[in-house]
Structure formats: C-alpha cells, structure tokens
C-alpha cells in the first residue's frame, strides 16, 4: 500500500474533488486535458498466473484519452511520464496578494499588474518580467511565470535568478488557462497547492507509476487514445553482452542483484537492490550461457525467481523484487464494495519445492507434501539444492 496520509484516505472516502496529472518532462496534462468521461484505466499486476507464482516480470498498464482539439499535440513527442492522481485535502482562506501569488517551501512570489511585475519575498526580482504575470507554476525548483505578452519567464527558486527555459506551445496555452492561479507542486510530499485570490486549496497526490507513452501514428486527431506500459517494457530487448553491460571479467563473482543493477543501468531505470531479500548474496562465477540468445526480461524473471519474488516497478518508477505485503491492513465491509465474489474453496499452502531441468540434468526438491511448486530450467538455480 502506497504511503498516504489519513487526510488523503478521508478525502477520497468523502468524495472530495480529485485531479489527475500526467507529468511529462516538458508538459503536464490535467483533468481538462484528459477525457474524464472515458476515464483513466489503470491495471496494477502482481500475479498474472493462475496460481500465485514467483519469477514474473510484470508490467503495469494505463490507458486514457487526451484532448487535442487545438492541435497543440500534433507534433508533441510524448515519452516517459508520471501518472498521479490527487484528492483535495483542504481549503483555506488567505490574504490576497497582488494579481497572482504562489509559495514554494521557502519563498513567496507575488505578481502585480504594474512594474515591478514580480516580487520574491517582498522584493522585486532583479530580472523583471517584460509584462504582467498571468499565472505562476513552481515545479522541481523552477518558478515559471506565464506573461500577458504570451511568453514565459522562469526563475530558480533557491536564488531568484532568471533561468532560461524552453516552453512548448502546449504549455504556453496550458499556463494561460491557469490565469490568476499560482501553483506549487512539491515532489517530496506530493502536495499540490493552488492559490486563487483569497483561496488556497491543497491536493495530496498518490502516484500510479511511471509509464512510457509512444507517439501515436496519427496524432492529428481531436482525441488521442493511449495505452501505456510501465518501464518493464524497456527490458524487452536482447540481452546485451557483458561489455555492453559494463561488466568486466574481474567483476565476477557477481551477485544476482548486481547483475540486475547493471541491466537496469543499461536500460536507464533505477533498481532497488535492497528489495532482493532472498538469496541476496547469491552470485555467479561467470556469465550464464543461457543469457546469450534470450532477452533481458527473461533474465529479470530468472533473477526474480531466484529471489523468490516478482519483478515489478513500484509507483515511484523504481524496479523492485516484490512480494506480498501482509501488513497493509486494508479492509472493506459492505459499504466498501459494489460486488464481492469469494471462491468456495481456499488455496493450499505450498509444502514442497522442486528445482529441476526439463532435460533431466538435475532434479532437486525441498520439503515434503503434495502441494509442490516447480522451478524448472532456471539457469541461475542450476543444480541448487
């Protein structure tokens, strides 16, 4: 269960306003850009086998439709993005300042209709905007000011110095739609604050994960449909050589998790090595021959199986070797569900484990009983007893 405040759970349970954000490297899409009536479908996978199984490399999916009525996305590249949804946890009355205001964790920015157009903590910034500020967005240490002359002036939040940024046409239009609003998104606590006149509303966001949106073949339509997978798809490629992975012969013996870390680096994702708790010190003395001629995702599956886990990306976009979390305590009574169909039987506890080769080279087992779990042809467990 993703860690969220009790205020968040209460807000969702009470039906407070919610807001979806799709945050790309250079653009952010919100409710008005997403066809909410079609909705966002998010598929979160832990096990796709019939019985609960280890050794899976799972890829979560998200699908949605983006409006493109003004054609601003016709040439947009899309790419990796964070999908996150927030719930409004508070509304406060504040003293109005200037025409637009926004505060980061350390500084307050107030815009005025006449020169000086922008003040930081009560002092005019040295590099003044050329025109009155329409809206302010503070994100990731940068203060973006949308000006009435159609341009964006940016500042570094920590020192107030002007900063050169490139803002695409979509974001220019997007920030214009936020006229009169000051917005600050804090990535650390996932709180979004919006100042509108004398009102300050706060949303707490819980991410769905990081995904990759491929540029559609025909983007010049009024509404663009996307079905996106998380970063596990980056492993859908041939397993590189040791040299390409940056592994020298002297790196052997190499732990399983060490190899997985090299692979993660090769595809540009993060891997939490501490998430491998079973066989965490297991290592190979040389490159496993079966790694040649297969793809990286299968190797991920082998290592996950050796770690008695499933490989998946968590909501923060980090690869982890995951297993059942028994301490979530989430429960639902009749008011918490619309439909509920429990099966008439219950599953059996695994009481035996086989590790064998289909070719008969080795066949080991552990435990005794008829509820056996089979590990077969895993080169990272070849002959392991």
């Amino acid at each position, binding site marked *: *269960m*993703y860690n*969220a405040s009790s205020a*968040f759970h209460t807000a*969702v*349970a009470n039906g407070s306003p*919610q807001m979806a954000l799709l945050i790309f490297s250079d653009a952010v899409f919100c*409710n008005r850009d997403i066809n909410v009536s079609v*909705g*966002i*479908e*998010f598929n979160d*996978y*832990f096990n*796709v086998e019939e*019985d*609960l199984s280890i050794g899976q490399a799972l890829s979560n999916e998200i699908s949605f439709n983006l409006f493109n009525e003004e054609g601003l996305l016709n040439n947009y590249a899309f790419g990796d993005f964070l999908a996150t949804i927030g*719930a409004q946890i508070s509304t406060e009355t504040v003293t109005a300042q200037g025409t637009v205001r926004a505060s980061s964790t350390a500084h307050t920015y107030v815009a005025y209709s006449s020169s000086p157009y922008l003040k930081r903590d009560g002092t005019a910034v040295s590099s003044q905007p050329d025109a009155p500020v329409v809206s302010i967005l503070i994100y990731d240490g940068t203060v973006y000011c949308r000006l009435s002359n159609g341009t964006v002036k940016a500042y570094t939040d920590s020192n107030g110095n002007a900063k050169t940024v490139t803002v695409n046409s979509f974001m220019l239009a997007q920030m214009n739609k936020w006229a009169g609003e000051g917005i600050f998104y804090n990535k650390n606590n996932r709180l979004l604050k919006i100042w509108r006149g004398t009102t300050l509303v706060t949303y707490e966001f*819980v991410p*769905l994960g990081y995904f990759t949106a491929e540029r559609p073949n025909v983007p010049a339509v009024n509404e663009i449909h996307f079905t996106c997978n998380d970063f596990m798809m980056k492993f859908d490629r041939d397993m590189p050589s040791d040299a390409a992975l940056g592994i020298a012969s002297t790196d052997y*013996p190499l732990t399983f998790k060490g190899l997985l870390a090299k692979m993660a680096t090769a595809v540009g994702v993060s891997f939490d090595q501490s998430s491998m708790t*079973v066989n965490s*010190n*297991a*290592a*190979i*003395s*040389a*490159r496993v021959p079966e790694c040649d001629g297969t793809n990286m995702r299968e190797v991920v599956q082998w290592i996950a199986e*050796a770690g*008695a886990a*499933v490989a998946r990306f968590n909501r923060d976009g980090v690869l982890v070797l995951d*297993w059942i*979390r028994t301490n*979530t305590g989430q*429960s639902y009574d*009749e008011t*918490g*569900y619309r*439909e*509920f*169909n*429990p*099966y008439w*039987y*219950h*599953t059996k*506890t*695994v009481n035996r*484990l*086989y*590790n064998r080769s289909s070719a008969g080279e080795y066949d*080991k087992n552990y435990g005794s009983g008829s*509820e*056996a*779990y089979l*590990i077969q042809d895993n080169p990272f467990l*070849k*002959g*392991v007893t």
Partner: protein
Amino acid sequence: MAVTITDASLQGIYNRLHAIPEYHPLDAQTFADWSVEAGDVVTVSRENDSYSSPVHTSRMVWKGSPETQLTSGGNKQRDPVSTVSQKKYRRGSAAQRSQEIIQSTLEDEVDGVRSTVTQMANQWSVVVEGTGDNAHIKPAVIQASIDAATSQSKIHLGADKIELDGSTFAEYFASGNITLAQYVTLDDGTEVFLRDNSAIVVSGEEVDIVYGGNHRPIEYCLANAEVSNDKVHFTHMNGDELQIYINNDGELVFKDAQGNEFSFEKAVYPGTITGIACPNGAVTDGQTRTNGTVEASGTDITNDPYSVDFSMNYESFRPQGTSIDTAAVYFMLDGVKIGRYSDGNLLASNIKKNVSIMGITGSYEGSGGSGTITEISCPDGAVTTGQERTQGKVRSLGTNITNSPYEVNFAIGYEAFTPSGSSANTAAIYFELDGVKIGRKADSNLVAGNIKGGVTIFGITGTYSSHATIDRIYSEPGTLASDTTVRTSTTIRAEGTNVATKEATYSLSYFAKNDDLYTNLNGYEKVQQGTQYITQSSIVARVKAPIDIYALAYQSDSEPSGTAWHSLPNNAGVNNPLVIGKKEAWYKFTIDVGPNHEVRKWYKVPIEISGKGDCVSENIKKGKSICGVNGSLDVTQTAPWANQIGSNAERKSITMEADAKQSTFKLVKNTVTYQGASIPCVELRDSSNRAVGRFYW
C-alpha cells in the same frame, strides 16, 4: 566455462512460498483508493465472514473518482507439479534414450474430468474421460502411431465429433499439401484419393467431388471409379465405360463406351419455362412505377430467369372519326407498344384553361366561381441610376380573372403644403394612383428662406437673396447726454440685411488755414476767419500753409499695414471708383492737410454674386438641406460703403452712403454754457439734428 552458483539455496525460496497462508480467491468491485497496490493483502467482509487475500491484479477505472476491481486467483490445488510428479526421467545420453522405450504419462483431473497424456517411443495419445459422477462421459482418444513394420504413420481419432479450423483447413488444401499420395480411408475400407484443389464433401447421404469449386454428385459410381492416365473411368454394372477427363484446353470432356464425345449438359437437361411474372411486384398506394421488368423463369434453363423491360407513358391520340385530340396511355414491352387506352372525356374543352393533362392543354375558363389575384406589380420595372420616371402603371395579375392583367396609372408630383403648426409654405411630394393621392412627404427645410432668391424648387420660390440692404446708418455712441459733454471722436455705423455691419470712426479736430481756423472732419468747417493764434496750451503751432488735397488709392485683398501704399491714377478716387470685377478690394484715400494732419479712409467694392437656379447646392442657404441637397449659398458680405465729401472748399456736412441708403452728418457751430460761461463749440449732428460729437476751444 562452468558457472558456479554460490550461496543460493532453495530453502529461502521454499520458506517464502511456504509462508503464503491459505486464502480464498476472490473478486471484488470496491471503492478502494489508488493507494492500494497489487501485492497488498486485503480483507473483505460479508455478513459474519471475512476473507483475506493477496491482490493479484487491481484494475482501477477513474472518472473523477475511482472504482477498483481487486482480484485474487489460485486453484484449489497446484496443477503443474502434480502432473509432472509422475513423469519418469531417465538418465543417459541422447543416443541411449533414442533406443529405449520411454513412457511418460501426465494425468490431471479437474472437476471430475481426467485427462491423460501418454508418450511412448512410437506412440502418443491423449485420453479424456469422466470419473466419479462424470463416469458416463465417453472417453475421447487421439492416438498417433508409427507402424514399425511399414514405417507408416497413422492418426486414430476416437472422438464423437471432429472439428477442424475452417480457415486453416482450407488453406491447407489450397496449399496443395494433400496430394495423390495421400488418401482417406472410409469406414468400409474404401480409399478415396484426393488431388490438388479438390475435396470430398459428405452431405447427408450424398458424396460430392469438389473440383475447382463445382460440385457433382457421384453416388453409386464411386466404388467403380478408377484413375489412370489422368482420366477417371466409370464402369457401369452392365460393363459400359464412361470416361471423363480434362483435355489440353482445360475443357471437361465426356466420352461414351465407344469413345464418342457427347455434351453431357445438353443431353441431360432440357429446360421448361414455368412462369412469366413481374418481379417488381404490385404497386402500392402512393407509389408510381412507369417502368419495370417482366421475367420468365423455369427449370433447367441456362439463362434462367430471362427478363425484358416494360414502360408506361402517354401520347397524343386522335380517335378514329373525330377531329379532336385526346391522349392515350400505352404499355410498351421490350420497346413495342402493345396496349393503348384513352378516355373520351380527356379533351381540351373539359380541362381548365392553360392546364395540361397528359399533354392536352385545357381551354375551359369556367363559369362563375371566383378568381384569385396573385400579384400587384409595376410593369415598368425599377428605375435605374440617373433615370427619372414621374408616371407609370401598376399592374394586377391573377388566376381565373377575365381581365387579367388589370392596370392603372400612377404619377409622382408636388404641391404647396403648409405643415401643421407652421406658417411657412413648403412643398409636399405625393404619389397619385389612379387619380387619388395616396402618399405625401414634405421636407421641412424646403422653405423660401433656404432657397436662393428667385429660384423655384418644387414650387417654392427662394428668397435667400444675394442683394444686401442697408437698413440704417447711425452714430455710435448716440446723442450727447448734455450740452457740456465733450466727444472728439465718434463712430458712424451702417447696418442692413445680408450685410456685415460696417463702421468708421471720425475725429473732430481743428487746423488753421490762411489764418482762418477750420474744424476738420474729413471735410472741414471754417470756424473762425482770419489769422488766429491758438491760445490753448495744447496748440503750439500755427499753420499757414495752403492745403493741398489729393487722393491716393491702394488695392488689396486685405487691409494693408504699414505705409507702403500705392497711388492710383489721378482719375481714380472717390468719384471714379476702380472697377476690379467681382473681387472684393480695399481702397484707401488720404487727404493731406499738411504736416501732422492726415485723414485716412477705407472702403470696399461690393461683390456681385450670380447663381445657377433650381435645387442645387448653390441655390440653397449654407447650412440648410432641402430634399437631401446641402446648401452652400452664403451671401453675407460687407456693406457697400462710401463717404461722400464735398469740394475741398468749406464744407459743413458729410454724407455717409451705403448702397442706396444715405445719412448726412453736419458740423454746426454752437455755444454751450459751461460753468456759467458761454463757450463756443463745434458739434457733429446727425440727420435728426442731434449732437453726436462736440469739442471746445
């Protein structure tokens, strides 16, 4: 290079798997928020029962709020391992394994249906059968084997039904994978050969050979057919032989027992026409159909059905023995008129005038009844730019009207008109239809005062004249208030109609001439004869020089400044005004009476204005608009002005003249009583003999 796995063990894996508690698989449509992740253990309760299960998949649909389907799966028993556990592995090399009999049996049972897969050296089989309560299920067997003696492979199907994937099976045939070397053995042992692009179709009690898409029943003959040399030979019970084959031209050839070709199709299928009908069907209410198809159909007819087109129309028709046209309806089949029908009453005299029915134009105008006026218009059409039309016609059109079109005349004119509450005549423009004025419109600016004098517009004669009139010449200020008032200068002013007020200022002074003392006012009055000495302190000089009077003139568009005046010819002057046409000009006269004595005077020549007449801008007073024409006429001008002086001898009066008006001011010696003393003075008196100026000495 051998790979060594270090520190890895199954125990940790086993411990984790073994730690998974038993759980009930479940499927719940919840209102869970999206902080719940797949892999979480959730508890769902219903009544007194609660179920805790790990979430295998979570599918959330968010449409402004979430709805999440949580799924936890799992079988009652773990199947894969239970089947494989019965597998018997052997050790040894691949070469050794190929020479040994290996038996592998996989068994699985789900809900009373058991499947057994058995693999041996030369045979592989699948058996599905019911067990327990499902023991009545008939076993289904698929068995593939190789005959060790013949080395032939065989598939045995022991199922009640065989289903083949339609598209895959068809592609298999089309690809030519089934050849003559392959065959199907029927239950009775008959072997049926198949060739490329052919198939055997069993339909009901018949067996068809399909070749190139054509079916042909071969019942009863199949057992006697044999193939040789690319021909099929059919042998009848009586020994006759029939050959069917395809020649080099790709044609299907039939030959009888004697080797003679025959046309199988014609000999066997004489056709029969069984009916002629119209496939379009009967017309229904409201439907029109003027053409269609007549179709013949039958049995064993190659071009079945055969159809020709028909149509229906009408034409002019004069029945025999008559001289009056009517119309006949005809039916045309395949381009030939085969029917004609007319109604004897379909005559022009029975049809409304100008109405055509089936080509017969009516001439009957009816009796009684009522017509309908459909239009009132002006046949002359609209006037165009620059065109004037003060009269015309209005036309009425209608139907069933004997005198249609009916026309009356209209005219547009004007007449004198005094608007209500006004005393100024104007003119009203009216529209007169059939002798009756039905419209009138007046322009309030169309009055005499806004029109050039003498010009008539729409009957209104203008009075706005260019002729100025001097109404009055007077002194300003007026009559002296008392006998002792001193006023040594006065202004004489002329006012009138259509003229700007003109005025001139005169000073009363005196001078000496030939020892006589004169009073000077443009002209002069001898005040005292003989040599005089001025005793007043203000007069220090004695003037003796004779006065020479001469005139200088200067022509200019505006009053000149400075002293750069120019002389006119000697004959130019007051009594010989210089005519300079229609241009206004200034003239200056100087009367030099010696040093320090000078009188200057200006006057203007009047302007003559000529006009063009009618309702044009030049005839309308400036600032006024008549009938949309803005006036530009401005006759305001400076009053003509002349001061006539007498000879250069003594003169006691001066006559001011403006146009036809004159006013004479005169100098009069007088005495007034001032502080008890009688004091001589000279007064300027107007035409009413009232003193308007005076000085003493």
